[in-house]
């Protein structure tokens, strides 16, 4: 999973414009991904990539970069 896959996912699921998705983009402030969306996003990522995300990982996610790091670390 790279940033382009994540762009597709965010565009499909949450109508986020692709050009807004950069590594530094803040999920809530810039992309309007709230905590419920974040739960849905992680559940989609689990389906797509098979990664298991611990429940408390959500709390430390701020930016698109954090999501990518989380996926890489799994």
């Amino acid at each position: 999973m790279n940033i382009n896959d994540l762009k597709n996912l965010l565009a499909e699921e949450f109508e986020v414009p692709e050009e807004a998705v950069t590594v530094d983009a803040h999920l809530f402030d810039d992309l309007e991904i709230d905590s419920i969306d974040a739960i849905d996003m992680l559940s989609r990522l689990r389906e797509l990539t098979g990664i298991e995300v611990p429940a408390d990982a959500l709390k430390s996610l701020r930016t698109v970069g954090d999501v990518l790091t989380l996926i890489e670390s799994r």
Partner: protein
Amino acid sequence: MPVFYPLFGIGCLWLLLLLALSAARREARGQQIRRLRAEASRISAAWLRLGARLGLLQHDVRSSAEPLAPGTIVIANHPSLVDVVFVLAELPQLCCVLKSDLRRVPVLGRLVRALNYLSNEDPERLLAEGEARLRAGESLLIFPEGTRTKGAPALSFKLAAIELALRTGATVQPVVIHYHGRYLSGLGRWYEMPVKRLHYRVEVITPVSPPLAPTAADRRRLRPRFKAALERGFEQRLNRFYPDQARFTRREPSSQPL
């Protein structure tokens, strides 16, 4: 020695005893849960009466609401450690959503499981389980701030209660708790003694119906609005009784953790 903690301990032990009796009688689980929840409500009411008789606590309740409909979400603000006692004394048979750490406290953890309360540890599970419980007619108690109101009171609700209401159409019953002391507020130390009688005012106000939100996209759009409407409802109430002492302002959402 603060007298509240031993009293709380006695209440817990009483529930444990009932649990043991219920297990010995091989009571069906559903019946056991109902009985324990009813008892938790009675203990809460008794605790408040005793506090009042000992001159430690004064509380008045204003309730304009009907008895709870099945599958209602009760939300309350959280100015102090014992808020749950006021809500349970007023509204029996609630399923509380608790901080996950409480499950790991030895005696309390056992009780929390016996009462079949929900934990906020895994948000995905909380949403799924909460939805199932509401649809089965259980009513939930959620403190949507997620923790006690800290310092200068400013309400910022987490989204679980809001999402559950939008998903299920459950009525939201706000319970507004007015308390301005320092004792039990999370500001002082737990062993600090209150210098004067604790004064609480509890308002069970008109329930709110969530807007219709059949699709996930509708819920996305409506979450921030419904959240703001509920926060505003609490803030107006909180300001009404204490116009000079407390000015409640909304915390800006910018750069908050999700």
